[in-house]
């Protein structure tokens, strides 16, 4: 008996919906083994991972609070990824967004009402995220420099820029010499969305980005052209699709979304500028984009899952005293199965038996 993979003539829709379920089951089985091996009750461990974080209203708020920036950034990145434009530097674009939005907030102080200041901060964040991404886009279209490298290197430049600002000119003079800015005025803070939690209006911005991206990808002619460029570059040249425009659109979409995410962090849970504005959302969003199959709705779900894995990992460490490496292992297992099960969308398993193979 042999098991072989056979290409499907067309991607299977049923498999597309069933593979996440299959991956979840496989993860649970492996998780059982992992937790058993560490002498923990697997049921309690899984409960700590998946149920405890969202058992309270506050927990749900935290889930959405973390999912928001992941969703927003991954949505922007996926637009470029579909066209083979590989923006890896969302973390830096996020930082620039936080600098611009935060700088505006610090400059405005109490003088400007929230209805004016918050939109201005978001626009400033989007523009500066785009400007940071535009450097990589220009280097690519003008000199053919690989945007994976340039965008990634710009992350470190952005971090040093922020670091210099909070250590130097923007440091709070009454902050006991800590490298941090003044706290933002109330007018520069995003309004709360769910009382008793830290969830803020930034989540609505993320949802709006998902909806916009869906229209762009599925309905707009530019979105169509970018998909063609990603699937078949020769067909894109044949159809006269501008590869330069695709690079610009892809990089700017990612930069804008990451920049807004930076503003949302600064004006949301943090409320000031710190040397680091993100626990690595810009990089985690790359995984979210692929787990969500680069599809806006898939990304929305994937960001919730990723957020749950973060919270579940913390909860398992706190409640069961599991080492953080084990929670990381478990998270990796789920992502591995999710991406591996993908193969079933385009291939089917065939079990062959009977006559032996030819001699």
């Amino acid at each position, binding site marked *: 008996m042999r098991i072989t993979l*056979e290409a499907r003539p067309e991607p299977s829709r049923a498999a597309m919906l069933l593979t996440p379920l299959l991956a979840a089951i496989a993860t649970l089985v492996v998780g059982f083994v992992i937790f058993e091996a560490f002498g923990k009750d697997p049921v309690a461990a899984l409960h700590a991972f998946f149920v405890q974080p969202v058992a309270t209203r506050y927990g749900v708020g935290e889930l959405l609070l973390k999912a928001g920036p992941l969703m927003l950034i991954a949505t922007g990145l996926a637009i470029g990824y579909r066209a083979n434009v590989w923006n890896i530097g969302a973390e830096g674009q996020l930082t620039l967004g936080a600098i611009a939005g935060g700088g505006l907030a610090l400059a405005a102080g109490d003088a400007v009402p929230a209805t004016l200041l918050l939109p201005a901060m978001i626009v400033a964040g989007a523009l500066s995220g785009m400007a940071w991404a535009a450097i990589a886009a220009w280097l690519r279209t003008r000199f053919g420099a690989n945007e994976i490298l340039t965008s990634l290197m710009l992350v470190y430049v952005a971090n040093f820029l922020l670091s210099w600002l909070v250590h130097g000119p923007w440091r709070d003079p009454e902050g006991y010499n800590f490298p941090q800015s003044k706290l933002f005025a109330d007018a520069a803070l995003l309004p709360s969305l769910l009382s008793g939690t830290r969830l803020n209006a930034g989540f609505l911005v993320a949802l709006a980005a998902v909806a916009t991206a869906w229209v762009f990808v599925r*309905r707009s002619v530019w979105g169509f052209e970018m998909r063609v460029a990603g699937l078949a570059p020769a067909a894109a040249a*044949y*159809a006269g699709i501008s590869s330069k425009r695709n690079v610009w659109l892809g990089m700017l979409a990612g930069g804008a979304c990451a920049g807004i995410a930076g503003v949302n962090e600064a004006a949301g849970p943090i409320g000031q500028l710190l040397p680091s504005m993100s626990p690595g959302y810009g990089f985690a969003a790359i995984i979210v984009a692929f787990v969500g199959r680069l599809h806006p709705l898939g990304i929305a779900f994937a960001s919730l899952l990723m957020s749950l894995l973060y919270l579940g990992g913390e909860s398992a460490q706190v409640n069961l005293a599991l080492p953080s490496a084990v929670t990381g292992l478990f998270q990796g297992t789920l992502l591995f199965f999710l991406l591996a099960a993908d193969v079933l969308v385009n291939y089917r398993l065939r079990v062959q038996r009977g006559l032996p193979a030819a001699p």
Partner: protein
Amino acid sequence: MSAAPDVLPRPRLALRGITKAWPGILANDRIDLDVLPGEIHAVLGENGAGKSTLMKIIYGIVKPDAGTVQWEGQPVRLASPAEARRLGLGMVFQHFSLFETLSVAENVALALDAAQAGPGLPARIRSVSERYGLALDPSRRVHTMSVGERQRVEIVRCLLQVPRLLILDEPTSVLTPQAIERLFDTLRQLAGEGCSILYISHKLDEIRALCQRATVLRAGRVTGECDPRRETTASLARMMIGGDLPHPRHRAAAAGAAALVVDSLDLRADDPFGTALRSISLTVRAGEVVGIAGVSGNGQAELLAALSGERRLARRDAITICGMPVGHLNAAQRRARGLAYVPEDRLGRGAVPEMSLTENVLLTSRHQGLVSHGLVRAGAARERAARTIASWDVKASGPEAAARSLSGGNLQKFIVGREIGQAPKVLIAAQPTWGVDIGASAQIRQALIDLRDAGAAVLVVSEELDELIEICDRLAVIAQGRLSPARAVGDTDAEEIGLLMAGAAASFDRGTAFVR
């Protein structure tokens, strides 16, 4: 071959009751086939008749749902091409299975056992290719090679393994008449050495000249078996399509104003193995079909890229469409000025494999009323796809079928239909009927002539001389990046043009042709 029917030798390959269903289509329906040792056996059939599926079953790529395969009298179950090769089967595909970034020798080595793929391989490639007149440079990379040259790699790769059954799928579509004769000599030589040959084609003249037996397939079933040498082209066609052979109507051309003008175009090659274009001049007038003949690799790819706008030119008036200079424009901008283009590669260039037919209509027609305010009018695109499917009788499950789910010929009908559906002023078609069966070929040729009669300028770049002579009003030959002046088709013949193509190619250092 000469044995009497009642004492036939044991077949080398015997298929019994082979059945294979794809989603929505029965590709093979209880097919029986015997191939004798040293026999050249034709498998003849239209698009979608099930030829390719049957060959893939024999070669171990596809599993049959039912039926048995016997090799030298033993039942076998071929689970992979590697096993088929171990038994002594070789296959030359219509769509080549070569890695573009690897060299000829590396590609060949991949198909061989480790023991055979040693350091002496380049020398053996050279000796086999010389023995059979298939000139090849083992160190050359495949991505720099034309279709005709790639086919040579496939054939040599098979011959190195000394096959006992060689399968060839539409092998002559890219060869000159003289080169076809040479290939036939090679195949007869192989058959004489005892190798069986399965020859898949829709070219009835070739089958009558080459094959001793023919099995005819129609809609997945065997509809006849015959000795093609005793049949006429018309009787073979009737068995194959179940009706009479369509003949294109061809009126004299009523050529009008110049629609496509190329003015002393010089173009450096993009890569070291490409062909530079040297002062190419050409005029195609409204209401005429002009053909460009030539052995592949002589500048066709470069010329087509320059004409289509896939490669933009520094000089705007090197190419004009209906009087407007377009040399600097990209493909979409040239389309907006009345150009349509059917490229040689269907999957990956002419169509996006993973996308639906509706989306593939959008690929080239998106600026023809299918987009408003930057948004795609999905309903209008679907309707246009459905219209193309219906009027061209494309075998597909519907407008939402992925392009890659269509057979080669059906996809080509769809692409030609899509391009002609744009009512172009100038249509360029590269190898429009390559690997397409007789019925669909006739349909495509007729459509090109009808487009001409409707007043469009048509340029056909093809390596099939018969086709060019059938549909063109004027004909030019491209060799080593130079284009001969176009001459009226009535003033020349296939032999003369074939010699011009082959002669030019033979004087070429790289030796690009199957020439003696």
